[in-house]
């Protein structure tokens, strides 16, 4: 890991539309292993927020426990972050989202955090359609406790220590589709050109956006025989499409053959260059088929798998006021003395 970061920044660093430079989206120095895929994802999140001109302080980062869950310290230093309890990030995110519907919520989790100890909470966060981006940094192993297999490790995959995983993998993308997640994507930490537009689209999506990012563990799961090593993933990756995110009111300049455009609720758009036959990102059945087919063929299907662009998130379902609940004061919250006296009277 690097332990010194140069403080020098070019005085003419490019600024985004709201006058922030990329530096304003950086976090503390990472303490993860050199070459860790997670750091690339952190960089992609910061880059996506910079490009999308999200005010850094209007983002909240939440995580559970594990290598993945340490990363919110390493990006978006001007945002509040919360490193909570193992597998319980979804509940903390739910509470935070209920308290203030106006922030952008990033949940960062790992395969141990989401597919094992936190499976219950992961499942229910999807079911409730929180308006949040849920990033799983998926390396198929427990890095922080030195490389035990996780529940997303493929059956037959070999660990660095040489043992073979004997159990079937949980596919979070397939599960997310089944549970009704309204934005489901998979990407690879080594493919920023795909990951950054996906993160931007996920931020713009008004409901639960799941991005399962295969992120090889350079220390414990990057060996021959592992199905989540850099080499293996690069050899078996298969994209649904190329993805281009077009923010609101921005002119579309590029043109594609066989392109599909998905308009998001805020007017921004996703351009998808279809590479995969028989797949339509707004048709869940074809998305499920594409996932199953690629699995059969031993491919890792990436890109935007499924999207339901117009969706009602939890606050809409609960009919909560548009004003963030954490800003309400006594005048709207306390029923007052007269109401209490009337209640007393009814109890006599």
């Amino acid at each position: 890991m690097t332990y010194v970061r140069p403080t020098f920044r070019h005085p003419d660093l490019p600024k985004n539309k709201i006058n922030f430079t990329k530096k304003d989206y950086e976090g503390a120095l990472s303490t993860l292993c050199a070459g860790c895929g997670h750091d690339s994802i952190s960089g992609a999140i910061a880059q996506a927020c910079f490009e999308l001109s999200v005010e850094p302080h209007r983002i909240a980062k939440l995580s559970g426990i594990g290598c993945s869950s340490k990363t919110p310290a390493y990006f978006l230093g001007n945002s509040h972050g919360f490193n909570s309890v193992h597998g319980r990030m979804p509940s903390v995110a739910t509470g935070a989202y209920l308290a203030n519907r106006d922030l952008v919520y990033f949940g960062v989790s790992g395969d141990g955090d989401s597919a094992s100890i936190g499976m219950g909470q992961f499942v229910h966060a999807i079911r409730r359609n929180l308006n949040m981006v849920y990033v799983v940094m998926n390396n198929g192993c427990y890095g922080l406790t030195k490389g035990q297999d996780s529940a997303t490790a493929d059956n037959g995959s070999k660990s660095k220590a040489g043992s073979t995983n004997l159990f079937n993998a949980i596919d979070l993308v397939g599960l997310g589709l089944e549970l009704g997640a309204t934005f489901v994507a998979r990407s690879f930490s080594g493919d920023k050109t795909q990951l950054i537009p996906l993160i931007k689209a996920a931020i713009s999506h008004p409901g639960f956006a799941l991005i399962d990012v295969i992120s090889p563990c350079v220390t414990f799961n990057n060996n021959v025989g592992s199905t989540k090593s850099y080499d293996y993933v690069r050899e078996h990756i298969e994209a649904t499409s190329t993805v281009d995110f077009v923010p609101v009111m921005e002119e579309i300049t590029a043109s594609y053959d066989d392109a599909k455009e998905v308009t998001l609720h805020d007017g921004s758009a996703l351009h998808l260059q279809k590479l995969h036959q028989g797949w339509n990102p707004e048709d869940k059945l074809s998305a499920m088929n594409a996932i199953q087919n690629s699995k059969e063929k031993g491919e890792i299907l990436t890109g935007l798998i499924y999207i339901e662009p117009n969706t009602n998130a939890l606050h809409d379902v609960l009919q909560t006021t548009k004003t963030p609940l954490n800003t309400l004061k006594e005048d709207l919250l306390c029923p007052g003395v007269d109401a209490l006296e009337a209640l007393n009277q009814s109890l006599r």
Partner: protein
Amino acid sequence: MKFPLFENVNMTQVNDFVVRFANVNGTGSASANSMFAKAIFRMGVPVTPKNIFPSNIQGLPTWYEVRVSEKGYLGRREGIDLMVSVNPQSMLKDVQSVRSGGYFMYDSTKPLHKEYIREDITYLGIPLMGICMEQYTDPRQRQLFKNIIYVGALSALLDIEFAVLEQLLAEQFKGKEKLIPANVQALQLGVKYVQENFQFPLEIRVERRDLVGNRIMFDGNGACGLGAVYAGATVAAWYPITPSTSVVEKFEKYAKKFRTDKETGEKNYAIVQAEDELAAIGMVIGANWNGARSFTATSGPGVSLMNEFLGLGYFAEIPAVLIDVQRTGPSTGMPTRTQQSDITISAYASHGDTKHVLLFPSNPKDCFELTADAFDLAERLQTPIIVLTDLDLGMNDHMSEPFEWNPERKYDRGKVYTAEDLENMGRFGRYLDSDGDGIPYRTYPGTHPTKGSYFTRGTSRDEYAVYTEDSAVYVRNMQRLEKKWETAKDLVPKPYFYQEKNMSPLGVIFFGTSTYSSEEAIDLLREQDVVLDAMQLKAFPFNKDVEQFIEDHEVVFVIEQNRDAQMRSLLINELEINPKKLIRVLNYDGMPITADKIVKEISKNLTIA
């Protein structure tokens, strides 16, 4: 066969008796029985009803016990003066539980088997099913009106004013007035049968008094839910568990009524039924971290599950309010019976060095006020606050002083920097002890574009929330948390003293629902010339007043409803008291503690002494 006896029974018991109803769960008896209790309350006589029910929806035996007490004693009393037996399943046990000289009302449609006959009690046979078969054709009506008929019969036997019952029916069926005449008629059927067959009223009876004043009848769970509405809770997350379920149900009821925009239907609150208690407390922590007042309600098994998050709340200094309606443990224990047995787990919930502020309400008014105070304390102290109530308080109606709210009251949102504060200050340090009271300042997410953000985690950070595993920094932080704990001692509610000046070398300590019977026991012992100074605990941590009270007495009895004398242990542990000085007075059979039991336990120890 030996029958339980209640000593000192006065044979003419005006406004001083216990009636127990033996019903089948799920047969509509609850509303008839509560009408009976409410009628006595309306006649100005103190009354305390208690549900004694199984963990079952339909079919098993359930009891409803009503104590009438001219002296205003609201605790449970042993010795049943009148048993209303409408459940064949439990009839033998029910006959046996009547005190010698008492009454046994039963359905005489079929003759009573001889094993149910005792010489020392009076039988009041009313052919309830027979009357219903004759009067009604619909089976559901036969079932429901049976209950109303026995209430009518009781009104004649006990001299309960018929007009009061009529009024209660009118209130109960407001908007469904068509149902009133049939119910009044059912009451009259009961009255008529008594008039034609028995000498009435009985020696136990009700006489109108003016002893209730402006008091109300309400359940503790409802009062907690209402307190949360008044305190401005906006996010409630919960998982259903007996006996706490109605806390959030009542919160929802009142929030819906008072916090819904009449035009748009938009709500100034959000309620989520979580997937489990782990998630419920996680949501509460998340919402409070983000600046909303949020709470959950649970019982012992839920507290067990919430331990990890409670610890995080303590270390990461996040407000939270948890209402624990205690029950008899464990998960497959006796979930519908009462206890005060979550004291230890609540006080020290979680791994590591953790301590939590506890509040102990003892009646519905306390539930309302202490729940509201819990939100202020949680935000002032930036820590979880646990309100420890119990099944007896939560799920039964209690006679209580009316609710009060100071119209000038402002929520104490604690130490929070605004964008303006941040703009005008130097570097923000989330865990700096700027005021010397151990309580740092916090910021809500989204406050300021470049200042005030921080990364929340347990303890591996310095005063500026920067990651470190430096031992000295860890120790410094732990010491500040200890200082905050000292600050809490002055902020939590003080204990209540029953005397202005100590009068005895003997003291007694109690809290929560043990209060009712403790007060009565103190009176009973005084009649035997045993004088006790009394202190009611309202909160943990214990402040100096608590310490002083124990110091000022030679022997102190600690009355509580658990096996291990958990409050006693907490006092010994926290105040470093010689254990021999604190004598345990315990009840842990799942039933509310009685004055009789307390008197016996204390007397036994006095004889030894």
